[in-house]
């Protein structure tokens, strides 16, 4: 389970060009670089890495890394 958190943090860090810290701190509010274009790049990379698909509503609503992890777990377990 920690692997998912680490992989999500790593993907976001690479797109935003930040140091991957604690996943709780990785939020759109905290990082100005997490704009609409980078959001698309992050979500595409997440979909490709975990072989999951998000709905447009889910993509629009995501506000932080923890929500991404929760959605991945939900889809992988569903």
């Amino acid at each position: 389970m920690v692997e998912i958190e680490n992989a999500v943090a790593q993907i976001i860090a690479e797109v935003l060009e930040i140091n991957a810290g604690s996943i709780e701190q990785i939020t759109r509010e905290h990082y100005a670089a997490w704009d609409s274009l980078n959001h698309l790049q992050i979500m595409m990379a997440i979909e490709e890495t975990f072989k999951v698909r998000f709905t447009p509503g889910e993509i629009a609503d995501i506000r932080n890394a923890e929500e991404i992890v929760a959605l991945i777990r939900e889809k992988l377990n569903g």
Partner: protein
Amino acid sequence: MVKLEMHHIGIVTRSLEVEIQHYENLDYKLEGNIFEDPLQKIRGVFMVNNGTRIELLEGLSETAPTVSFLKKGIQMYHQGFMVSNIDTAIQKFTDDGAILVSSPVPAVAFENRRIAFLYLKNRLLIELIEKEEKR
């Protein structure tokens, strides 16, 4: 089989009026009037040169979808294509792994025919434009 007809290249600007002058220097001619679309949070205008059409766009606010491109220094940021059936085309691209960025909505630039934006797996943003008005 979804047929795509190239319509324009979308170019984000800080100022429409300034960029119109730059593109007139490149022999582009205005095609129609400047339009404003509050739903897309942009104002824009089409220009053409020898069959190539560009759509110059200026955000109406800091929350406009064009702003993040401008901040990265990206000017040409999407390609627009006409399709006969926008729903079928969206299904085709999402089946191929594209992300539907915005569901079909009427657009001022196209006489309220529907448009939708998709982010393709090769990280290209495309706009699909419905050819005929949906009834």
